[in-house]
Each structure stands twice: as C-alpha cells, then as structure tokens.
C-alpha cells in the first residue's frame, strides 16, 4: 500500500504546486496553462478518492471546457493594450497579512476535516438501500436524477441563466446574431483535419459515457461536455457555422433537457408518489430519457457559453 501513498503524496504536492504557480506567476498566459494542468491533475485525485464520476466531470468540464474558455479569454484580454485592473495590487505588508490569514484558514479547515474521530457519518447505506427503486446501478446518477433531482433540475436552469447572462452582454445591434469562435475563414488545414477526424469518435464516446452512466461512472454532464467539445472543435475549424442565437432549433435544443425533466417531474404527481417521483416500473427508462434530453441541452449550452456573446448580426 506504500506505493499508493507515495503516489497520493506526489499527486497532492503537484496539485498544490500547480495552484501556487497559477497564483504567483507573473504572466497571465502562464497562469492559465498552470490552471489547466491543475484541473487535469485534480481529475486524477478524484480517481484516487474513488469518485470516478467526479473525475470524469472535472476532466471534461473543470479541465477541458474551462480551459478553452480561459485560453480564449487570455487571448482577448492580454493581447495589445494593458490588462484591466481593479485597483492597484496590494503592497508587501498586505500580502504578508493575507498569506498569514489564509494559512490560518487552511489550517483550521484541515484540523476540522481531519480531526473527526469515530465512525464517519454517511448516507451511502441509505442510498444503496433505495437505489433499486430507481432501476439504476450507479448510485451517483441515482442521487443526481432521483434522490436530489430538484438540485439537478434547478442547476440546469442555472446553466441556462448563465448563458442568457452571457448573451445579455452583446452589443445592442448584435442581439439575435452570431457569436464568433476562432478566426472565420482562417482556420489552418491541420485544425480542419482534426475537426473532420475527431468528432465521429467523440460523438460515439459522448453517447457511450451517457449510456453507461446508468450503471457505471458517467452520465449526462460528462457526455454532454464531450459532445460540446466536438461541436466547438467543428465550429472553430469553420466546418460548422456558429448559429445565430435566435435560431429556433438552437433555442429548442437549449430548453429540451430542462423541459423534459420538468414534464416527467410533473407527470410524477399523477402517476407516481409526487413531483419528481418515478413510478418504480418505469423509473429507469424515464431517467434515461431525461438524461438523453439533458445531455443534448448541456452540450449545446456549454458550447454556446464558450462561443460567448453574439458579436455580429445574424443572417436574415
């Protein structure tokens, strides 16, 4: 078991070092690269913690899609003119006090989290006991789609709201128009080649991740993020046009997940024990149907979030 411990210590040290690098390095571009590395290492930590569902989410969303977003931002913000600053950077005395205070918070947290003795409180047995009623075998999917389904439903709305918030930042004339992704017409042959070869594989992988999510690690978030990445790649390479935000099919794809979730939830009032309850006989097919719809919505929402606010008027 000592080899495992050595790996854990090395991994934890690397994650902390990457985090420090991200904070301390002078160049913003280097900080973003450090952050992406941090996200990928963190995904490994989740594997070590036996939380493979989280690992997949962290790798796909925390490391992957966030990385694309940040790289685009650092390109837009730190090229040419001086970067935006919100007030002057604090002096050395403030830094020292802040460092001390933050170290104290970290120490307090470590003390509280690690200082627990006796049996750890857990809901795992309860979740395992009720999992058969959902027809699923992956308990995390059970929590997300059944036991705490309201969290997941509201969080879908949060995702849509963030997209509306991003769209609201468009210039007045561009509302309803298209976001820009990449440099239109200037994508290199290499990128186009990659964008032709990768998406068929990626789509299969995304759907596979969604499908196995019922029984093994995976699910709507992770599958949706993979699909989103494929679409982003195709749009950046210019193979698929970035849609105008007013397009009806786009709007339909955005809302189909939350609406399907809601519809099944409301139906539960009449055919099962209440709102967001599933009739035991049909629980698994219903949950899979919801997940399929959510995956599509997540993929489209994530990709449009990366594309950003519309910049130019759409085609009439």
């Amino acid at each position, binding site marked *: 078991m000592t080899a495992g*411990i050595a790996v854990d210590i090395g991994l934890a040290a690397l994650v902390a070092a990457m*985090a420090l690098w991200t904070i301390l390095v002078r160049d913003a571009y280097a900080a973003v690269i450090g952050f992406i590395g*941090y996200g990928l290492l963190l995904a490994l930590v989740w594997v070590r913690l036996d939380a493979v569902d*989280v690992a997949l989410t962290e790798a796909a969303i925390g490391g992957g899609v*966030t990385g694309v977003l940040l790289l685009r931002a650092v390109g837009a913000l730190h090229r040419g003119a001086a970067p*935006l600053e919100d007030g002057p950077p604090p002096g050395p005395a403030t830094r020292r006090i802040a460092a001390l205070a933050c170290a104290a918070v970290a120490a307090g947290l470590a003390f509280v989290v690690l200082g627990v003795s006796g049996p750890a*409180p857990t809901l*795992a047995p309860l*979740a395992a006991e009720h999992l058969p009623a959902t027809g699923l075998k992956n308990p995390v999917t059970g929590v997300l789609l059944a036991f705490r389904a309201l969290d997941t439903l509201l969080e879908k709305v949060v995702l849509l709201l963030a997209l509306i918030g991003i769209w609201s930042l468009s210039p007045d004339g561009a509302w309803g128009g298209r976001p820009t992704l990449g440099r239109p017409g200037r994508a290199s042959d290499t990128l186009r080649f990659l964008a032709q070869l990768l998406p068929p594989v990626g789509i299969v992988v995304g759907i596979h991740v969604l499908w196995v999510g019922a029984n093994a690690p995976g699910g709507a978030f992770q599958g949706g993020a993979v699909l989103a990445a494929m679409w982003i790649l195709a749009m950046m390479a210019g193979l698929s046009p970035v849609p105008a935000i007013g397009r009806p099919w786009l709007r339909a794809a955005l809302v189909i997940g939350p609406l399907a979730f809601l519809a099944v939830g409301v139906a539960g009032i009449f055919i099962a024990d209440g709102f967001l309850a599933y009739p035991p006989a049909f629980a698994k097919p219903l949950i899979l149907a919801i997940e399929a719809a959510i995956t599509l919505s997540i993929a489209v929402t994530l990709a449009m979030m990366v594309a950003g606010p519309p910049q130019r008027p759409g085609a009439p």
Partner: protein
Amino acid sequence: MTMTVFGLCGAALVGIGLYGLIVQAQPLRRILAFNLLGGGVFLLFGVIARRGAVEGLGSDPVPQAMVITGIVVAFSATALAISLVVRLKETGRGDDEGSA
C-alpha cells in the same frame, strides 16, 4: 492515509485560492483564484465522501453528486465572469473613442 493527504491538499487549495483572491488585481487572475478555491472546497467534499465509504460503495455518492452539481455551477460562473471581463475591456475602449 489517502484521505489525510488529500484533506490537507484541499485545505491548502482553499488557502491558496483565498490568497489569490486577495492579492490579485486583474479580474482574470481573480477568476482563476476563485476556481482554485472552488477546487479545494470540492476536494474537501471528496475526502468527506471517501470517508463515508461502506461495504460495496467506495465513496458516499451524495457528496459526489453535490460536487458534480458544484463543478457545473462553478463553470457557469467562470463563463459569465469571463464574458463580463471581455465585454468590459471592449466597452472601455469603445467609450474612449465614441461617446466623450
């Protein structure tokens, strides 16, 4: 032991993220610091979940589900914040040329 190591790591990440939020002046760097802080909080959830493992389940699924929800919310926040910062930079330039 695994839990102690990653519990310390999570606590350290919270401290590092908080420090970054305080000392960084550039909005993009603050967004990065916020994400580091969030990662630390999630990691603490993960340690708590791992500690709640029982026979047949390597980790308590309830905190895991919360972390997945949390990662998606943190991503949404990052995307919105980045769009705001980028728009602010564009607008700042626009105002100098246009309105005045």
